[in-house]
């Protein structure tokens, strides 16, 4: 029942991506208000001053998706989401550093 399909090259979600508030909301099927709230919570860091001038990078989209899952699945409120994301990102960084160290000092 499988079928093989060639699909176009994907988009890397990095700092080169520029998304408006509307793009962000649409890609995650949420209200723009939710995105705005995450900006005010300090979770998302768009460039630009006013919401209509905001530009989000790929990392912001990844964070928004994560925030949404945490909020829906674990019923965490926004400050809780912000805290969880911060701690998770710190944990990932530490894990990456640990991997590097383990390569330099095996055993």
């Amino acid at each position, binding site marked *: *029942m499988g079928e*093989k399909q060639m699909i176009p*090259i994907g988009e890397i*979600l990095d700092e080169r991506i520029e998304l408006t508030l509307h793009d962000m909301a649409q*890609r995650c099927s949420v209200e723009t208000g939710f995105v705005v709230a995450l900006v005010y919570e300090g979770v998302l860091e768009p460039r630009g001053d006013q919401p209509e001038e905001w530009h989000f990078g790929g990392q912001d989209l990844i964070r928004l998706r*994560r925030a949404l*899952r945490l909020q829906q*699945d674990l019923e965490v409120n926004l400050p809780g989401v912000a805290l969880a994301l911060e701690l998770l990102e710190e944990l990932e960084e530490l894990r*990456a550093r640990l991997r590097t160290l383990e390569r330099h000092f095996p055993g």
Partner: protein
Amino acid sequence: MEYKDYYKILGIDRNASQGEIKRAYKKLARKYHPDVSKEADAETRFKEINEAYHALKDPQKRKAYDELGSRWKQGQEFHPPPDWEAAGGGFRPEDLHGFSDFFAEIFGGGSPERGFHFEQRNFRVRGQDLHAAIEISLEDAFHGGSRTLSLQAPDIDEQGRVTQRTRQLNVQIPKGVREGQQIRLSGQGAPGLGGGQAGDLYLEVKFAPHPLFHADGRDIFLELPITPWEAALGTRLDIPTLGGRVEMNIPPGSQSGRKLRLKGRGLPGNPPGDQFLVLRIETPPADSEEARALYRRMADTLPYNPRKKRGI
């Protein structure tokens, strides 16, 4: 289909209170949430836990589930009793995405295969985004490449039935992708319902272990073993990089751990990364009388105490 022991999945007794069910669920959900957990099977476990909670949190559904009796075992082949009427009701079709056939049978009014119909006219739902990890080689990250993925995804067939379908996707790896980055493939997620848009597919990039190199962001590291005389006197060596071999000067007086940079030889980008050589001096074994004599001569002519300046 397999019987699901929802009590066992949540680790509770069959006579647990609704409060106990909720607490067990919350605890497990935090533990196995795919964004939080590093357990290999977190995603599967999380789905199971969610399904179990959805079945047990509503007393009416729980009662229906309990009526199946306690003689069934987790994973046992299950056929609903002939007079079974699905307890169903109150489910939005998107809720059933990712839930098992067993769940659909008990609560949804029929297994996906038997025809689980949705009225497609009445709503329009965007398809779910899908998330998968993809392991690629450093070579593919450097040159770009392609990779075939098998994805299990819910699908809606022409009759409006939900089915699990395995899709083979040939994904292009963009040149210069880094570890941990995500690639978004627009419209390659689960199909929408009622003419809604398809979701997107997000691929999280992991690098397969490489026999020579490892990456840190865009930079590539290579541990380079050299002899004591190469380190002391300097030399010119032929060094592998992801883009091919290059000549490199090892300056005289190099020590173990010294990092040498090959500018722009890391992963492509703007700016591209660098390749770093980390020197590691390997001493030849003193496994013959001649070799031991040579080492003793070195000790006599080159009196040197590397510990002295560190006060060891």
